């Protein structure tokens, strides 16, 4: 059987084929060709769309250009969510390539945060890692790291360097064997049926009786509606990195292997396709 380490590689090198088209309302000097790109699932939109921006700027006048933002079928895409999460949540059962509309005007301040530079992404990414480590190890691991170690994590993500990133990230994934897991599992559950952006609460990887918690245990506590009841037709899909793990998968294992580089386990609960 394949090794668990292969999962990390598969997760890291997940790519979503994307077709960027310019919003037709934008003023252009000539018609803009769509732009096709493989987006890394674990990265963030501002980190991987330099080429897109360059491509569309060629047909636009500089005075017509404001901050670039993206939209999929009318929904503005939050740059501070990992790309894979955006895709799974908004577009998982649509036809590939993923169609994203590029805007340079009318920035939706209500829906999106501004992202003037990539240092914003870095700050957001590092604060997520710190938050996750606070949950996992009371921040002990991340505080023990040096500035350059933090930089290595960020550079690894930014430059898509799996080895560079994991050489450091593995330290964040360690835990004392006698405890059977992290202190708490850093997770975020995204639901279409909820007004809140996501659910994030304290949840331990092991029950008080010492049994490992599963994905099922987590969902039962956080959003029991998402679970299919006996005799009922499946209404929701539980998607992580574009796959649906079995509900008996241990949560600790998921956290170690299917977390995003920000060290959070992002779980999307989306309506099951009806057909």
């Amino acid at each position, binding site marked *: 059987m394949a090794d668990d380490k292969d*999962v990390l590689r*598969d997760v890291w090198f*997940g790519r979503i*084929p994307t077709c960027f088209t310019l919003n037709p309302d934008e003023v252009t000097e000539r018609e803009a060709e769509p732009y096709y790109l*493989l987006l890394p699932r674990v990265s963030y939109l501002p980190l991987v769309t330099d080429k897109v921006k360059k491509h569309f700027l060629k047909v636009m006048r500089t005075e017509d250009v404001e901050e670039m933002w993206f939209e999929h079928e009318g929904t503005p895409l939050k740059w501070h969510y990992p790309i894979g999460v955006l895709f799974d949540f908004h577009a998982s059962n649509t036809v*590939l390539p993923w169609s994203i509309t590029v805007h340079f005007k009318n920035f939706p301040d209500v829906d999106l945060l501004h992202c003037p530079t990539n240092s914003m992404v870095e700050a957001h990414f590092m604060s997520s890692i710190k938050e996750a480590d606070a949950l996992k190890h009371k921040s002990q691991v991340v505080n023990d790291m040096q500035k350059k170690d933090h930089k290595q994590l960020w550079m690894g993500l930014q430059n898509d360097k799996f080895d560079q990133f994991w050489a450091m990230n593995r330290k964040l994934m360690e835990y004392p064997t006698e405890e059977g897991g992290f202190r708490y599992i850093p997770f975020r559950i995204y639901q279409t049926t909820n007004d809140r952006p996501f659910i994030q609460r304290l949840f331990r990887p092991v029950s008080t009786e*010492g049994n490992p918690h599963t994905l099922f245990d987590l969902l039962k506590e956080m959003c029991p509606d998402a679970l299919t009841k006996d005799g009922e037709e499946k209404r929701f899909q539980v998607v992580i990195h574009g796959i649906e*793990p079995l509900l008996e998968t*241990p949560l600790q294992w998921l956290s170690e292997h299917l977390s995003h580089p920000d060290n959070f386990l992002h779980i999307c609960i989306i309506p099951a396709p009806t057909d």
Partner: protein
Amino acid sequence: MPASLLWAVDVHGRVYSLSSAGQQWELGRDAPMEFKRVTAAQQCCWSLGCDSSIYLNVFASDLPVRYKEETYENQRWNPVDGFSERLLPSDRWQWSDVTGLQQQPLHSFQLPSSSWEWEGDWYVDENFEGEPTEKEGWTYSIDFPSTYTKDKKWNSCVRRRRWIRYRRYKAMDTWAKIPSQPMSLPDPFSDISCGGWEISEEPGDRLSLWVVSLQGKVWFREGICHHNPEGSSWEEVPLPGEVVQISCGPGDLVWAVLWEGKLIVREGITRDCPRGLSWAVVECPSPEVGAIHVSVGNGVVWAVTKDNKVWFRRGVNSHNPCGSGWISMVGEMIMISVGLHDQVWAIGCEDRAVYFRQGVTSSELSGKTWRAISAPRDGERCLCCGCFKHVMTICLCSTALDVFSLGMCKPSLWSPLKDVPSVTPAVLEEEVIPADGEEIQLCAEEALLSTESRGGPQWSNVDLEEAQTGAVLDLAETCSLSSVTTFTLTLEDGAEEHPMWAWVSGEGCSVDSSSQLNWFTVTQSVQSMSLSISPAQTAAWRRQIFEQLSERSRREMDDFKHYEQAIEQSVWVKKGAMQWWRDWKPHKWIDVQFAFEQFSGPDGNKDGILFIYYNYNEEKKYLHAFINEVTILVPVLNDSKHTFAIYTDERTKQRWPIRVAAATELEMYDWLALLSVSCCESRGIQGPPSKQAIWSITCKGDIFVSEPSPALEAVPYPTPCDQMFWRQVGGHLRMGECNSAGIVWGIGYDHTAWVYTGGYGGGFFQGLASSTDNIYTQTDVKSVYIYENQRWNPVSGYTSRGLPTDRYMWSNASGLRECTKTGTRPPSPHWTWISDWAVDYSVSGGTDREGWQYAADFPASFHGYKTMKDFVRRRRWARKCKLTTTGPWQEIPPIPLIDVTVLPCGAQSSVDTIPLWAISSKGDVLCRLGVSAKTPAGSSWLHVGTDQPFKSISIGAAGQVWAIARDGSAFHRGSVSPQNPAGDCWYHIPSPAKQKLKQVSVGRTSICTVDENGNLWYRQGVTPSYPQGSSWDHVSNNVRKVSMGPLDQIWIIADKVQGSQSLSCGTVCHRLGVQPVDPKGQQWDYGIGGGWDHITVRGNAMEPPRIGLLSQKDTAPPTSSSPLPIGIAEPNGTAVC
């Protein structure tokens, strides 16, 4: 760590054991009766029955306990009868021992007890000092006593021969009563404790057993050792008072409790005098209450006072067995048991549960918290109420009567023992009062009172104290939770549901603070737990994830490969400050900038360059190495520097690697892990080693593997040995042997046997460079030796004052380096001391009683006795240290080994059994059953009898088994076949003239041996019809070890190999020109070296290409003929599944 057992007795006298790997208490069903107490070692368990007799349970092992009885038949020549039984009146007995002083006719030999049986009948020994004798085994001499020869000469007037008969201990895995000695033991026993196995060099070889009688006397069992598990006799030990209880640790600690509550400590326990010399008195922790129980370990003492308080003794060690002071501990216990690694178990006074002390480490011997062991008892559920009561009645009577009789002889006994009935006060009243008199009733009342007076809230006290000591809030939370549940359990469910324990013994239980124990889950969770870890189900969710991920890649990526990547790959640079052992003289460490640039090569493989930037005469310069040219990275850790060596083929030729040192150990391992992964990536190697892999081991115990190419054995142009690429595998071994079916066994410095699990990584290879499965904890123990040197002077005799020209008075073996007891540190930071300095008596040449060896002067050859001509003496001190690491190795308990060999060829299928032979550390020859590619660990050992201990063994491709005996001669085993895997008899092969052989290796047809002077010998004249061969041919000298491959390749570890810049010892060498017509080959090719200790090429069955021209392709990866776990790294690392 293999599974070992924790033993306990419940209040009904039933004996249970709990495996360190198990989750429930197993009832000892074959016990002939109820037991009062047990005391366990790793190889056996002693117990004190309710009949006050001593019982012994020796655990079954594949290695039988057998004893060789021998006697000599003596004859003298006279002109009438020739040699006859008629001896002169002044002669020795006709049948005698070796000295001739003791009469020993054959019929005088009796089995020591009913637990023994004869293995066969008497037979004559036809071996004499490594040489076969004439048919009848006679050896001749001029007269008794004298030196004997195997040949009859003209002046041979007497002759003798040795008769041998083996007896075998048969009472394995059962409780056998130790026959009592009617004369010496008037009163029955009341306490028992075993230990002392670490006093001798060979652990498990001997045992001390101490018992206490009801009258308070102490007895010591003489003569317990491996081949005499029952011991021979009881010796009374004089005492300053009357003892109630005694405890013997694994080393030289023995403590006992006196009636009046004081403690006494045995002093003067040594290897020569395991009984000790005298007692010292230690005040009890609280004088007004007095102690009732004590338990000792290697360097700790725990005691319980009569108010059930627990105490820990500070500062106890071999030199100061009395320690320095008492520390009060939390918890209320009735007894405590200190086990291996100073781990602690106890029985709670309130709930009678067995508690384990968590967090006991060598730096924190007192541990952190008590945790109740909640493992269910075997058959707990099926025990219906009625029969439970029934059993209880019977047993209670016996305990009660026992207590009663104790009370009769000594009233003061009540206080220490009153808590025996107090656990079941209610039942006691009902059942026992009709049974017997006043004393017991009184006791029951007293017990009731005492339980009432002690309330439940005491447990909350415990928690408060724990919370104060443990800063971590979590600990306090869980701990209070668990104890609260325990407490309510006791209240509500009462006595019947809850297991009530009376005694626990952890002396044979090998766990430590890092062990994973399944003892603490509550009953109902055991089931769900075992369900959730069932392999089928884990496979289901894991398989789902693997399948879905590859399905995802197919869906999202396969059709879109022509799309552009969002992030362009670029060069990645890692830099750091290091020190470098500079190339020019004078050599020294200088500060350098160390940089590693990694990039994707044109073929998609990752590649990189290492740069070392240094200053030379104020001028900036650099040195570089291409990652794809690096052949090996060797960690060289010592106590002062964290260094590693980088070799390329050029550097191997020079015997001069690039040596760099990192500032910290962590930094060094970060670099090593990164560079190793990069080296492997640049060569397209990933995953576990292939079955053909060549394994080698350094003198530090580090393990390396190399993937052979077919051209490695090509004739006439093989791949040069120095171009072989070696990568490190986690773990620590002294030697290892493999075969082409992928079976690899290793042996540690402590003789533990390990089997390769098929994983890779471990040790400092964490995360990506390591497989997740198949990595386990591995430990090793070895001794560090220093020498104490003294010179004789006429005034004060031997003193530590030497001549100015002498060596250091405390030194290493050569005397050139000073090594003091305090200044000597473990070999590297990975090793930690686990014992104190102790005199080592097992030095070659022998020692006197104090361990001294004498010589005329330093340096000279030393001998074990003092003569007139000796003016200097020395003795060796040993201190044990332990290393804990991880690697793809699993222990094969319990028999320690010194050599192992696997049939070099692969079997036809993965389930075919593969012959594997080994030699135990005692020299027994063993044959492993059930070894196959699927089950490389095999199932059990089959013991193969020999008349003398062996030291090396090897099995060839056709099943030829060769071995070397301790006397340096060779043996060939006849008739080994798949049907008869152990063969039938040994054929003696004399060694080359005046040489003692030490190691043998058998290839396809070739047999090579190495002798103690470093000569390599080839066995000439071996044919299928005459497998013993005819003579030894000298091949080479300066050889330390040889490994013959399945194609008859010859590889050695050579000493003294000259490179262009330096000389190296312990170098891997390959014999060139070995062909069927020239099996001895032509010359040596030199590979990696400097510090190599072992190599095995027995997995490489890859036939070389027929034509030598193909050798140009020597760097190509192995062809498809090898079952490859080696893959080529994907371009840019893009995931393609």
